[in-house]
């Protein structure tokens, strides 16, 4: 099921580069914003990254479903006329997981920076 379109539609970065970071992105956004709904998340990512990363619906909603199944996010619904808007927020377990995932990604970026010699090595 690992189809490219399922992950992240990229304006600049390759799909392979960002595979596996979507959960971290969503968790961090939910940590920084009290509660968000799907469309809002896609727009926030576009806004923050200045359109360089565009999360597709095909990537976002399966990820949100998985986060909910893992009890990392809580949901609440609001009725907009005939339709339901599902808001997501972090559960206590989700808050801990967010820190863990962000630290893991930051550490990975640091390692890649060293590995690819992207900054002067310390003397």
């Amino acid at each position, binding site marked *: 099921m*690992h*189809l490219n379109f399922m992950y992240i539609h990229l304006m600049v970065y390759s799909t392979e580069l960002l595979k596996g970071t979507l959960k971290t992105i969503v968790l961090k956004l939910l940590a920084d914003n009290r509660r968000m709904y799907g469309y809002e998340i896609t727009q926030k990512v576009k806004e923050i990254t200045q359109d360089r990363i565009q999360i597709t619906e095909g990537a976002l*909603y399966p990820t949100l*479903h998985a986060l909910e199944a893992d009890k990392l996010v809580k949901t609440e619904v609001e009725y907009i006329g005939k339709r339901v808007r599902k808001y997501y927020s972090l559960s206590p377990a989700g808050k801990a997981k967010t820190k863990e995932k962000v630290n893991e990604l930051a550490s990975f970026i640091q390692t890649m920076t060293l590995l690819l010699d992207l900054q002067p090595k310390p003397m």
Partner: protein
Amino acid sequence: MATLTDEQVNYIANDIRAHGIRLEGLQDNLLDHICILVEQGMGEGGEFAQLYAALIPTFYKKELYELEEEALFLASLKGPRLLLGRGRFFAVLIGLFLSPYLFYVVLDLLHALPVAYYAPPRVLLRWTCVGCVWPLLSLLVICFTPDRFDPLVPRHAKVLLGGGALIRVCPG
């Protein structure tokens, strides 16, 4: 911004269900997302039917229910699991069901040698071999079915053992 009528919202909701989305949460999310995008398009002068027809294929590659499959797949990734390539998966299973026959042959060879050994009852081994025929034949058929006949495990697929589902085929 334009607002969709109840009939239009119902139309989209029914179409999402008709596309094979059964998870209620996913239905709600997709309905809301699509409604927002269609309302934006209508606010810019677009027509509902055209906007919806153009929008819905952008959500998937082949079919909309791929989103549900992906959601279920991601949700199933819990606990110990093993992702095997197609070839390795079939090699393990075919090897497993072939092993009684090999064991039978080895016993025959040992029988010809003047050595003492513990031999399990032949009748038990014979019935084990008989019992393995059907699964072995089924596996061979599944393994060698060409892709054009829509096989259970297509070429380049991977097989996930464990997790929420016991066995899940993941297209490559």
